[in-house]
Structures are given as structure tokens and as C-alpha cells.
């Protein structure tokens, strides 16, 4: 965190849709300059939380403050400091790239002269210069996403919500988008970022919250979240032959939390420890099972996510 003063401060937020509790006493604090990742399975309450913060939804209980001020549907001074990049490309199909950015920028900036500069900067930022006179239908998926971003950031907001901005985007465009977001943060913007791509969040975000069932189940840096899980290391070994004796030997190791044999591939989740790889290979040697390639890696954010939210399918 570059500055500890909270830009977003949500306390005890409760949102119900009839019998369903979408947000269950939800708390959130985001400091100035953070790139804050919001992770959670479908229906976990991420979008509802953002909508409540933006006052697009009413809520039963709790409070939302931005820069220390209560946020209400008519807090236009606060709203002018916010940018939003929705998950769907939300632009006017009948307007060109430039006209679209200008229109959405005009919701925040009245002066035409100033807006012209901002629109030019936004077009340059997302690299849509040669497509400025194109209508959205003529743009590829990646270019349309970049237009979507330009419309959300042209007015140079201090707080920007990105809701899964890289869905259905090719790796080149994704890298460009992520680099752009880092650039915005370097320029001082506070970012709230939701995504299902764990690697993306891990690379980008300074802090991450994992949500489930309308609650925050964990919050911290990627390293802190990994440290908080029981998994210390994942070892994967390609055996010469699939052998149940080998699996039994591994399961008997003191640090083994879970071991599976799929075909001739042995997967072992180990508790934290310095000798896990040596212990696994030693046990295989002891039962006389040969092996080829061996992999050892620390837990990923995906492991943390699945451990905290479970593997049950969601909507």
C-alpha cells in the first residue's frame, strides 16, 4: 500500500434479494494507489458489492464511504472521481470510437476543449488511433474491449473499477490491458479489479480479497494468502509404471496431505517443509519404482482459491 488513507470504506454491508443474502455483513477497505483484486466464484457477491459501492443497488444495511465521504446516488462530486469498465462492452453502437469516448467523457467533463485533450490521450492510451472513426461493430473483440476501457478512463478518474476486462481477449491484448492498468496505478489511480484469471490477479494486484457467499473469506497479498493455506508444496512425478505400492508409500509420509495416482502421474500435496521433494523421491526409491520427469511448485493462487471456496460447481 502506498498510502494508508482509505479510498473505499465499506462497513457491515447487507444486501438481500428476497430470501437470498447476496452480501452478508461485508467489509472492505481499499487504500490510495492500491490495485485491489476481488476474487470469488460466480454468485459470490463481487458484482453486487461493486454495484452497492456505486449506488446502483440499494442495500438493507451498512455504509459506503469514498474518500471518507458517504456515497449516495446523488453524490455527483464523488462520482466524477470514479471510472468504471464493465464486464460487457457498454458503448453506443451508432457512435464512432472517438464519439463514444467523447460522450462518456462528457458525463464527467463539461469543457469541450479539455475533453478533446482527454479523448486524444485515452485513444493513445488504448492504442485505437487508427480506429478512431470506426464504429464498434467494425472492431475486433480485443479492440472493442480497449474501447470499453477508454470510455471508462478517459476522464482520468482517481478510482477505477475494472470488472473482468480481459474476458475473451487474446494474450497480446490482455498483456496490453494489464500493462495499461499498471500504468494507471503508477499515475496514482486506485484500482479495483475483478477477474476469474488467477495468474492475472496474482501478477497485477497489490492486495486480493477472496469472496464467497457474500462474505470476505480472505484478504491480503498473494504471498500472505498462500502462506495462510495449509499447502506448502505440490510435487508431481511421472512414474515408469503405475504402482499402488508407490502411492501407499507416499501416503505414509508425514508431510503428505493428499496423494493421487492418475495413470502413471503421481500428484502429492505436501505440508510446508524443506525436504518434501527429497522425501517423495526417497519413498519411491525405497519401493523400487522408477520415475521420469519431476515437478515441484509452491501453491498457486488457484490452489488458495479452491481451498477457500471449495470445488463445488457454481452458477
Amino acid at each position: 500500500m502506498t498510502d494508508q488513507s482509505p479510498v473505499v470504506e465499506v462497513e457491515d454491508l447487507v444486501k438481500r434479494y428476497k430470501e437470498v443474502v447476496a452480501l452478508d455483513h461485508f467489509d472492505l477497505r481499499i487504500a490510495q494507489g492500491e490495485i485491489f483484486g476481488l476474487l470469488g466464484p460466480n454468485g459470490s457477491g463481487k458484482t453486487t458489492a461493486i454495484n452497492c459501492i456505486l449506488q446502483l443497488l440499494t442495500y438493507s444495511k451498512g455504509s459506503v464511504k469514498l474518500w471518507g465521504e458517504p456515497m449516495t446516488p446523488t453524490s455527483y462530486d464523488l462520482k466524477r472521481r470514479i471510472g468504471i469498465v464493465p464486464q460487457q462492452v457498454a458503448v453506443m453502437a451508432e457512435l464512432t470510437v472517438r464519439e463514444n469516448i467523447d460522450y462518456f467523457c462528457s458525463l464527467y467533463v463539461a469543457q469541450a476543449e479539455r475533453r478533446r485533450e482527454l479523448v486524444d490521450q485515452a485513444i493513445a492510451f488504448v492504442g485505437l488511433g487508427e480506429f478512431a472513426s470506426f464504429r464498434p461493430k467494425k472492431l475486433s473483440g480485443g479492440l472493442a474491449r480497449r474501447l470499453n476501457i477508454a470510455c471508462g478512463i478517459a476522464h482520468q478518474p482517481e478510482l477505477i473499477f475494472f470488472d473482468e476486462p480481459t474476458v475473451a481477449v487474446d494474450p497480446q491484448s490482455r498483456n496490453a490491458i494489464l500493462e495499461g492498468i499498471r500504468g494507471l496505478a503508477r499515475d496514482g489511480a486506485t484500482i479495483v479489479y475483478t477477474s476469474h484469471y488467477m495468474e492475472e490477479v496474482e501478477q497485477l494486484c497489490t492486495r486480493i480479497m477472496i469472496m464467497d457467499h457474500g462474505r470476505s473469506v480472505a484478504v491480503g497479498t498473494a504471498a500472505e494468502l498462500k502462506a495462510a493455506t495449509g499447502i506448502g508444496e505440490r510435487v508431481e512425478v511421472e512414474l515408469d509404471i503405475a504402482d499402488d505400492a508407490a502411492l501407499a508409500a507416499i501416503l505414509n509420509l508425514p508431510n503428505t496431505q493428499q496423494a493421487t495416482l492418475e495413470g502413471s502421474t503421481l500428484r502429492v500435496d505436501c505440508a510446508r517443509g524443506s525436504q518434501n521433494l527429497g522425501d517423495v523421491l526417497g519413498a519411491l526409491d525405497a519401493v523400487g519404482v522408477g520415475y521420469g520427469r519431476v515437478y515441484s511448485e509452491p501453491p498457486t493462487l488457484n490452489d488458495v482459491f479452491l481451498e477457500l471456496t471449495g470445488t463445488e460447481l457454481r452458477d
Partner: protein
Amino acid sequence: MNAFTCSLKTLARDKSTTAWAFLFPLVLCSLFYIAFTGLDDAMGQPVDVVVVDDAAYRAAPGLSETVDAVSSGDDQWLVVKYAPNAKEADHLVAHGDGKYYGYLAVSPSGEVEYHRDWRERPGLDAGNEVVAAVVDSYLQTAAFIAAHPGATVAQAPEFTKAVQLTANPPSDEVRYFYSALGFATMMVSIFATTGVARLRSGRSHVGARIAVGGLPRYRVLAPTVGAAYVLAFGTLVIGLVYVRYVLGVEFGGRETGILAILAVGAAATTAFGAAVAVLPLASGALMGLSAGISCLLSLFAGLYGPGSQELADSTAEAAPWFTWLNPAREMYDAFFSVYCYDSFDQAALILVRLALLALVLFGLAAFGMRRLRHEHI
């Protein structure tokens, strides 16, 4: 200003909106032109009849002169085929493939008789009315000659005189085009429906984006409604120019009055379109609803032919309040007031009612927009 300009561009470039609001009424007017133009002229076509040219006919005072007069010249009413006797005349009518409407003969007692052909054909009633008018005219002339021995047909006075009671003569053709203009005024409400529906945060992602913007809702709504009004009025002006100068329909030189009515009518229907847009339905359904209501209300403005006109007139008589709530009918009445009356008082009263209706509908739209929230970003 930017919001207004962008709304204008957005709505003008929206192909489906433009097709419904602009092209559809123009196509309808063109169809009316094909179907109804010449409706008034049909009454002026001369009618084919057979006349029994026998002794009784020649003895009837002034009859042959009357028939000669109405079957020649610029104002020809009849095309006469003479037959020597009734049998021959009957044969001509029966075997003329419907060419002859009937035959005129004078009975031995001196009475003029019209034996009409009862077979159905287009314009049968109108043709028989023409022949009846000729016979009536003759009977009046004959009575004058009988009362004034020695007088000739030429000396008989004109027994009827055309007096124009309205500023312009009644015209069935114009009635249809007024209904069509009323319908067009309803259809342009689609501009407002589309524009306002797009602003609704609960129904579109663009709407959600606008809702989190830094402008109060009225500052987004007002330019959009303004743009919808400009397009609605512009569309109607183009429609009027098309009907008046391309199709050549005469509006009795009251085009300025019609423009004023279109200006107020466009405001009322723009307000109607905006009020429809805040209903809790999907955007496509809203557009369909707007078009559907426009078609339904046009039924009560006589758009769909004589049956529709009778229904419209009887409804207006039985429930005038319904007329006041129907912009299509109000527009129609206002057009006719301007066309027929010397004074604009009646039209002004209708325009005041339309303006009040517009205010109420704008109020409903603004209230509806205030209550909208959205569920997804």
C-alpha cells in the same frame, strides 16, 4: 450540448428506429396515395345510360334538351346511347357487360322512368345517384315549364346553388392523409422510446454506465428527449413535404397551421415515447409496445378505412375524454379544424390539450426514471 448531439447522432443512425419512425409512415402515405387518390374524382365521371328515343320521349317537355345538355360539354354527366324502344334498351343494358347503368324511358302517361341495372359493379351507387340527379333536375325544369307556358329549358332557373360552408371543400382523400399524419406523429414516439430506454440503468449496460456518471439524471434525460423531439418533428416535416409536394395532396393552403400542429403533436408523442420507455420491459419489447399502441390509437383516428372512421367518429361522440387521451385522434381533429374552419380557435384548443398531455407524460417519464435502479453492471 455534447449529450444532445450524441443522442441526435445515435438515434438518427439507429436503423430500426429510423425505419419504423420515418420510412414506415412514408410508405403508408404512398400506399394511401395509390389507393385513395382520385376518390373524389370518381364522382365526376360521366355515366353510361341508354335512353329510349320514342314518341313519348320526344313529347316530354324539355326532356331531350335536358339530356342533350348533360351529355355534352365540359361538365358531362351522362354518356347516352339511344334505343328506339324499351325492348331494345333493355337488351342493350342486359347484354352490355355492365357498361350501362340502366335506361331512361317515358311512360305512356308521360312519367320519366329509370330502369336500373341491378348487377353489382364498382361505383354502382355513385352512378345511379348521378342519373337520379339528372332526372330530379329535369322534373324541376318540367314543373317550371308547366307553370310558365312558352318558357324554354334555358329559361329555367337553377334550383340549387352550391354554397361553401367550410374554408376548404370536404375531401375524403385529405381525411385519409390526415389520419396518416396522425399515425406518423404517433410512430415518431419511437425515437423517444429508444433514446430513453437506452438510459435506463436496469435495462442496458450503457444505461448502467451512464447512471454511475457524474451528471444528474435530468441532465442526461433532457438532452436525449430534446434530441428525440428534434428528430420526431424533423421526420414529420419531411413527411408533410413528401405528402404535399411529392404526392401532390392539397391541404387547402393551411400548411403553416399543419406545421404548428405537428410541432405540438411531436412534443406530445415524444413525451408518450419517453413514458413508455420507463415501463419495466426489455428495450425491444418497449419499441414494439410503442409501435403497437400507435397502431391501435390510429384505429380511433380513422386510419384503416370507412369502418375505422365510423368507429373513430362514434367513439369520439360517446367518449370525448378518450379522444383527448389519443394524440392520433387529437392531431386528426386539429388538422381538420385548420382545414375546414376559418378560425383557428378549435385547433388552438386541441393544441392546448395536447400540450397538457405532453406535460403529464413527461412528468410520468421523469418520475419513472427516478425510480430506476439496475441489477448488473
